[in-house]
């Protein structure tokens, strides 16, 4: 009797322990700092991106986390960072464009905080050089957090005893906008996302991804021409070249040349500081000009940052204006060579991908999902797959196969421009 009691007690203890372990994993909130020992984590790159004047400490991270989730940072106390960068939604809001105070909407899709510490510049147009500086945008933007100036925010934080204590510990009591930025940025730097099936595949596990995904990876490097801009290598496994390209997304709606003219005038008059750029980017029809608003260089008209490709199924919709709902829409956009406009990047070409090749590429992109987002991603994938079966607004097979090579709206003396694969090549003779 006693033995059996003892045995069941042991069993209970084991069961409890197991449950707690499992439960502990499930109950770790998505907002918590992520462990660094994930498969595929780029340790060397990480050491490069932690700034010397803002090292990571647990206390600072915890302070930053508190601030991140604090809606008192908004002018009317209703908008916190996580409203647009919600952990459960891949640190985005899964809206085409974000909503700020007074339910006002901006023009740009909220980028994810996940792995943002590795970006060389922040925002779709790179107007902030660091995570710290990025914070200043939404803090002051009239349709985001709507503060009149930094002093208001600092004063508010100073008046909160909890923060007085934390700032005392972390910053020796100096409550300044700079330190608020440092704390929040330190928290953001804990939001890394690796350990995906693809990372495990690259580490040597041949069974980590499906055959379809492997074909997709091959297409990614070859026919799809994705790798050149969405570059991956073990040192920098983020699927971005940290550059800006006009892929024609804005051309869906805007007419660039008159917009560029207007933008130059406004910038010349307004001085072109971060605040003005921020407003132009978020609030005006010139949002579509992208990087040009920052550099004022012809080369950058309509250019936007190459975004990373991890966890795409929790960071939908896609592109700087959130105009595309599914990964198939994104691929259709590239397949036809983007949307023609005078400043379209010359690397955008019709790809001629078949439906099954697009499916393979989607399968590959799905393998870039971190475990904590796996189930949410699967749900979203099924939604997108169902939608993609019936609704494909970007699909243009004629353009993708080069039949209407010069894009819609071209009025020329040409008809069908299908490249003839077996055409007798007039360049018949060799060099000598």
């Amino acid at each position: 009797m006693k033995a059996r009691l003892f045995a069941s007690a042991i069993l209970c203890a084991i069961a409890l322990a197991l449950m707690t372990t499992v439960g502990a994993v499930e109950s770790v909130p998505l907002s918590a700092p992520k462990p660094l020992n994930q498969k595929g984590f780029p340790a060397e790159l990480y050491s490069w991106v932690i700034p010397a004047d803002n090292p990571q400490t647990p206390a600072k991270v915890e302070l930053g986390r508190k601030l991140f989730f604090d809606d008192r940072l908004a002018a009317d106390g209703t908008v916190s960072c996580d409203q647009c960068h919600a952990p459960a939604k891949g640190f985005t809001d899964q809206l085409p464009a974000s909503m700020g105070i007074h339910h006002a909407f901006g023009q740009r899709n909220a980028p994810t905080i996940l792995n943002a510490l590795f970006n060389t510049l922040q925002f779709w147009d790179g107007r902030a050089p660091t995570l710290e500086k990025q914070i200043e945008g939404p803090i002051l933007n009239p349709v985001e957090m709507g503060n009149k100036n930094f002093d208001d925010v600092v004063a508010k934080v100073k008046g909160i005893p909890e923060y007085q204590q934390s700032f005392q510990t972390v910053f020796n009591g100096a409550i300044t906008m700079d330190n608020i930025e440092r704390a929040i940025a330190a928290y953001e730097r804990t939001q890394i996302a690796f350990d995906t099936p693809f990372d495990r595949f690259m580490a040597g596990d041949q069974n980590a991804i499906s055959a379809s995904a492997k074909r997709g990876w091959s297409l990614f490097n070859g026919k799809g021409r994705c790798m050149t801009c969405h570059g991956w290598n073990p040192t920098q496994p983020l699927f971005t070249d940290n550059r800006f390209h006009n892929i024609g997304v804005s051309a869906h709606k805007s007419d660039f040349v008159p917009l560029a003219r207007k933008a130059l005038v406004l910038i010349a008059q307004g001085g072109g500081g971060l605040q003005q750029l921020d407003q132009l980017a978020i609030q005006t029809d010139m949002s579509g000009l992208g990087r040009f608003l920052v550099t004022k260089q012809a080369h950058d008209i309509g250019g936007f940052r190459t975004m990373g490709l991890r966890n795409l199924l929790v960071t939908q919709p896609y592109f700087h204006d959130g105009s595309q709902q599914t990964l198939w829409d994104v691929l259709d956009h590239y397949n036809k060579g983007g949307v023609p406009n005078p400043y379209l990047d010359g690397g955008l070409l019709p790809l001629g991908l078949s439906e099954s090749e697009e499916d393979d590429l989607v399968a590959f992109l799905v393998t870039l999902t971190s475990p904590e987002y796996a189930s949410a991603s699967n749900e979203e994938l099924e939604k997108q797959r169902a939608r993609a079966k019936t609704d494909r607004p970007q699909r243009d097979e004629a353009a993708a196969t080069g039949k209407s090579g010069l894009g819609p709206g071209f009025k020329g003396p040409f008809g069908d421009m299908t490249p003839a694969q077996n055409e007798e090549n007039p360049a018949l003779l060799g060099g000598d």
Partner: protein
Amino acid sequence: MISRRIVLLMFGTAIAGAALAIRGARSYAQQAATHDVPAAQNGGTVVMLCDGKTSIEVKNLKPGQMMSRARAQAVSDELMDQWRRAHPGERWEVAQASQTGGEHLYAAGSAKQPPAAAPSLAVQQGDTYASFQPRDYKVWKAETDKFVADGKRVFHDAKALGSTIGISCDMCHPDAANTHPETYPKYQVQLQRVALLRDMIDWCIENPIKGKALDANDPKLRALEAYIYAQRKGVALDYGKH
């Protein structure tokens, strides 16, 4: 004049089987004119070996008198035996060709000075890389040139490259300019990975040329690589340079 005797002696040593390097023989002939032959003791003729040391007196041979072939051979053999006894384990032609061998030709107190810094003429023998012949060089060069020429042909031929749009490599790379083969391996921006030259060739074939990438073992790819390297002969290797 003793030159005629020396010439006889030369002939003799050649028959005796000493394989002299031609160069060695020539220099030997030049240097031989200067060594001092000891005087005859028994009324015969002193015959000296080209080392300027070994000599025997051939009895019953008056100065100017001709020897029979057989006798000349016997004299040569005798001289060589003497030399071999004095230099156990050494080889005649090596000793003659070497710096030390040359010095022997000059007796102490000789008025003539040795040529300054005569280069070593010693050549190793007996292994693969020691036995290249002029014919080999000709054949190998012909083969290599053909390989490179084939690469040049493919390089300039859109059809051979499999281009579907009439583009060949030389259109952007006349004379393979701007291909920089000496900088591989390097991180190739277009591929977003560390590439070798052949990886970039294949990428170009797939992209601007719009053909099918060639297999790594495809003779055309290897020939293209060869041609591109050949155009940069003499340029220092500088892997990783952008």
